[in-house]
């Protein structure tokens, strides 16, 4: 890599992939320095999985350059497979095998790596080591999938939606495991459509929509780019249709107004200025509040601010 420090574990230029007439990835550029945990955040169908599968060598790009650990898939496939740890979105491991048997199988493919038992301990499945995979809970299966990704002692870990479909406790447990792997200094690329997951785990985040990265930075930078620390959300019941939104956007401290089915989102700088001003304005307009909430701005708000849609909208 000639671009100097930090050494890029992933280097993507002008990546393009279309399926029939759908453009999945559209002229994507991306660099992930070694040791970073990078998150691709975006709604379903944004092109996250296509991008990560191209990086994993499972899908071939139509055009563009992809270098993983300084290597390219068309020339160094076998070397790359040795050095990448991969978790796919929807793999169902064989239900008839035990946890230990599954990991022994995966371990046998790699020239180096920890003993299966060590990885089992790492993902906290000791009690389940001789249990059939079919009997594991969703969170345990996901931890086993992570263990399969770690058993080859990878330099680069790819996680595609690692916590989708898990309950909150199982998600937190998985996050802790991923954080520990980060501490070991390995590079991680993960995709998610949970903004809290990206905020918690990722050093940097790329927000993807329609095959492009539309925003890139640390979670803090992205939230700051809204120019608003907080979001005020209110409903006005049946009177919502009569609201004068233009007047709301002129209120002190309000940076943006975004109406959405029955409720209105205001991005604001200072709550103590914006909330009294809002209440005064609503009284002036003769609109009665039915609901009022505030929260600190999140990546979700960034996405809404950029696209006008929510991450989990289909």
């Amino acid at each position, binding site marked *: 890599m000639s671009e100097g420090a930090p050494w890029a574990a992933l280097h993507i230029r002008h990546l393009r992939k279309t399926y029939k007439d759908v453009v999945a990835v559209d002229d994507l550029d991306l660099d992930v320095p070694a*040791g970073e945990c990078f998150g691709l955040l975006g709604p379903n169908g944004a092109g996250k999985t296509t991008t990560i599968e191209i990086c*994993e*060598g*499972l899908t071939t790009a139509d055009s563009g350059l992809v270098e993983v650990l300084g290597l390219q898939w068309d020339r160094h496939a*076998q070397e790359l*497979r*040795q050095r*990448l740890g*991969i978790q*796919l979105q*929807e*793999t*169902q*491991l*064989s239900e*008839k*095998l035990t946890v230990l*048997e599954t990991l*022994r*199988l*995966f*371990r*046998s*493919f*790699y*020239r*180096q*790596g*920890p*003993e299966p038992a*060590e*990885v089992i301990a*790492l993902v906290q499945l000791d009690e389940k080591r001789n249990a*059939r995979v079919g009997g594991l809970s969703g969170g345990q299966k996901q931890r086993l999938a992570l263990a*399969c990704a*770690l058993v*080859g*002692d990878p330099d680069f870990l790819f996680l595609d939606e690692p916590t989708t479909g898990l309950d909150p406790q199982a998600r937190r447990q998985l996050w802790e495991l991923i954080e*520990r*792997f980060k*501490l*070991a*200094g390995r590079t991680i690329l993960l995709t998610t459509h949970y903004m809290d997951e990206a905020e918690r785990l990722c050093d940097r985040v790329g927000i993807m929509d329609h095959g492009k990265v539309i925003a890139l930075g640390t979670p803090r930078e992205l939230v700051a780019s809204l120019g608003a620390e907080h979001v005020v959300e209110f409903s006005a019941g049946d009177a919502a249709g009569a609201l004068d939104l233009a007047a709301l956007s002129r209120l002190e401290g309000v940076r943006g107004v975004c109406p959405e089915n029955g409720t209105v989102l205001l991005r604001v700088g200072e709550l103590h200025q914006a909330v009294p001003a809002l209440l005064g304005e609503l009284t002036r307009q003769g609109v009665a509040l039915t609901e009022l909430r505030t929260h600190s701005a999140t990546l979700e708000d960034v996405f809404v601010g950029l696209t006008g849609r929510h991450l989990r909208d289909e």
Partner: protein
Amino acid sequence: MSEVAPNPTAPVRTPPPRGSALARHPLAQLTLVRFLEFLREPEALFWVFIFPVLLAAGLGLAFRNRPPDVLKIAAVTPHLAAALKQEKLLDVQWLSVAAAERALREGKVALVATPDPRILRGDASGLSGETPGAVHELEGVVYEYDDTNPEGRTARMLADRAIQRSAGRVDVVESNDRMLREPGSRYIDFLIPGLLGMNLMGSAIWGMGFTIVDSRRKKLMKRLVATPMPRHYYLLSFALSRLLLLVAEVGVLVGFGALVFHVPLRGSLVDLGALCVLGSMSFGAIGLLIASRVQTIEAASGIMNLVMMPMWIVSGVFFSAQRFPDLLQPVIKVLPLTAIIDALRANMLQGAGFAQLAPQMAILGCWMVACFTLALRIFRWR
């Protein structure tokens, strides 16, 4: 980041040398996994090991060779009955005329023997005191039977022979019988190689097709392809686990046939084993071809049945393939199931060696090479 070395979660770089190199080999692991997956599937165990034995046992019992049938007939006079009882193949009852007629109509007896009314009219009371030996008094006999029924015709011949002999007829030419009932020509002898062939086909095609399609459907294949696993090991593991299972599969059925029904094993057992391996690999290649692109279990099952069903019928599992019209014979002959069953029968029942089985083995070899080559070319790894 070696600074965080005390962190117990950091994966260790060098593997401690534990477990033999063979057990850690990816091919050994893949084969073991195949094997375990099969053993832990109770239904598969049933269909591969128990079902063929049950089928063989059921059909073997149903079509077992019985001792020659003893025909039931009736006689309306005691001395007629006594004369007929000299024939061991007849079970003779002495009945009244009315009872005998009814038994004949109801099919309980195949024939009724009565004295000829023209000769012995009104003589019944005089005969009642006769001893059974007084056959010479008998002047004529009428046989009542259904001449469209083979049993009736046989009974007629046997009864007449007994009557004529007891009346003093002597055979002009001396004749003797030699009974042929040796193992090798019974239905069960025909059936066991047929079932073995059918089993080889079913377990190879199902084992290959189902497992591959299932692992593709569950994205497990995609996950394996993302590892450094050499892809030919994946396919080779199917062949190896198949060979391991084959020993048990063939052993159970052939052993059952030999021990319970004394089905002969006239050919070399090594040849028999080699034939089974060749057959299994050919069917495995067909299974691989079926599974090479299919994405769903339903589609795969449909194709598998479409491929196997015609062969179950025409390839001579349960009855000879010769029963089909001559026009179809060339087609039937080149089917893999016909080839393996013909070869197995020739080996087991006639003791044929490889030289005589060359045509069948060539057919199987062609199927194997053609299907395997094509399957590899179109195989979808994800």
